[in-house]
């Protein structure tokens, strides 16, 4: 009932695990995959990378702030880990790099991937992520190179803190199969007792409920501007949030920070979506972007 196609990916549900959450090891990816349409891994780079010192994640009443620092075992180790993935969902490998050729080289390590997400939006690492993803020409070149070497779908993940329409259009011209929006937004927290910033990196990326309205607007805009599908990411916590993103134009919705509340969040949202579609006697495909038709 929840089956949906995102580009050439035939997914059993629109629910997708967002990158950076429970995505470092196959056992958790496989477990989340049980009730997901796809799972996105933690971003991987060519070389192993330590990441920042703890504290790297803090929970606030409206979501999380993290500055993990793209910690990664490197592509060789990570491809060994992902070869153990046994999940019943599409496996999307998230890549980070600075140069177009490095993205292509990275992708060659992951035969088991059904698609690639390009991390062009991590806000707290100086030589990757958003630094790359703010440059439309560079984004277009990365996507073109990726598409010329592989037939697998490529989904650039963009930030709201850039001219996202321009960047998304460049990615679309480059041949992107869809756009993931949005990544975390820069933010920070200071402990008033110790009078010091909490994260070791001082600032980080804000995710969770607090950024949902911002993500909603980006999804809305991209749906208006693009032909390719939009995958929403940013604060979806309940089934209502998922429906809201779909109405704004998302064909799939990523969920990450909500795992703070429950490991069973995908199961619970999945069941609620089925109930909603039955009650409303409507299909998922009809709902995609429906809010645009009423304005």
């Amino acid at each position, binding site marked *: 009932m929840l089956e949906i196609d995102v580009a050439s990916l035939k997914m059993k549900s629109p629910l997708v695990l967002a990158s950076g959450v429970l995505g470092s090891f196959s056992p958790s990816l496989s477990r989340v995959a049980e009730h997901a349409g796809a799972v996105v891994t933690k971003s991987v780079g060519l070389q192993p990378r330590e990441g920042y010192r703890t504290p790297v994640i803090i929970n606030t009443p409206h979501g999380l702030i993290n500055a993990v620092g793209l910690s990664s075992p490197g592509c060789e180790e990570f491809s060994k880990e992902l070869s153990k993935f046994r999940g019943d969902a599409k496996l999307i490998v998230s890549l980070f790099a600075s140069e177009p050729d490095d993205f292509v080289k990275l992708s060659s390590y992951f035969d088991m991937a059904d698609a690639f997400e390009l991390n062009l939006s991590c806000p707290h690492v100086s030589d990757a992520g958003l630094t790359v993803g703010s440059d439309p020409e560079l984004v277009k070149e990365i996507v073109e190179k990726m598409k010329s070497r592989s037939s697998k779908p490529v989904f650039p993940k963009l930030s709201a803190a850039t001219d996202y329409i321009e960047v998304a259009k460049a990615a679309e011209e480059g041949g992107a199969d869809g756009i993931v929006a949005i990544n975390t937004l820069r933010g920070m927290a200071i*402990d008033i007792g110790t009078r010091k910033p909490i994260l070791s990196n001082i600032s980080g990326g804000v995710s969770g409920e607090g950024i949902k309205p911002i993500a909603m607007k980006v999804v809305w805009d991209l749906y208006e501007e693009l032909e390719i599908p939009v995958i929403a990411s940013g604060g979806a916590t309940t089934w209502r949030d998922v429906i809201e993103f779909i109405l704004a134009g998302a064909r799939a919705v990523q969920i990450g920070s909500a795992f703070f509340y429950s*490991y069973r969040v995908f199961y619970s949202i999945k069941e609620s979506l089925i109930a909603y579609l039955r009650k409303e006697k409507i299909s998922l495909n009809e709902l995609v972007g429906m809010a645009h038709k009423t304005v």
Partner: protein
Amino acid sequence: MSSSEWLIKQYEGDYMFSMRIDKIIRHSDDVSTLFFSSRLRSYPGQFIMLNLPRYEEIPLSLSSPNSVTVRAVGETTYALIRLSAGEIVGIRGPFGKPFTPTDGKALLVAGGIGAAPLYYLHDYLKRRGAEVKVLFGARKAEELVWKDRFSVLMVATDDGSEGLRGTVIDLLKEEELQQYDRIYVCGPEEMLRKAFTHLKEKEVLGKAEFSLERYMKCGIGVCGTCILEDGSRVCAEGPVFSGKDLEGVEF
């Protein structure tokens, strides 16, 4: 009194908060207990993420509602055990699944610094009227930290400097396990595995609980650093797992 004193307070929901260290007990060269300025609403077996400014944030089991008992193993823990009273630390939590209590007969099996959450559990169970016996093992007598916290106790040391010469597993093998309503185990991995094997052989896994330790970054179930083979998160589904949950899981 610093002007920010009034801000250093109790549990504030799900944000990091600060607490003052009121008192420190130096048990040995490398183990201390740090007492906080107020009690945390918590249960035995739960842990906190403790952030020592200028060092790292690390997971630590509560050894009472207002303390952690720490062994120096790295830079942060080394600094922690030498802290002075009055210093301020950041705290998130308590997090994680606690031990399942009993008011019947309980056996606590502690290896080394694995005793930390069991101090808390011991007091908690006694208050509930449980009959509690503790088996405590360490390499040598000095490492049987704070053992007078336990009222009914049998000890073992590798070098025989106190109690039985041998391990806590040797003590466990002497026990008539059927008589206990619950068995709680915490210690180093090798000891946990040996205890698990023995309890499985004796067919008492169903009433056994194990507290596991893993490197953690977030403590709240999102980062995916502390994943077990079956996908469980040590910080959220654990750190306390029932023996049955761990069957077939490499830990």
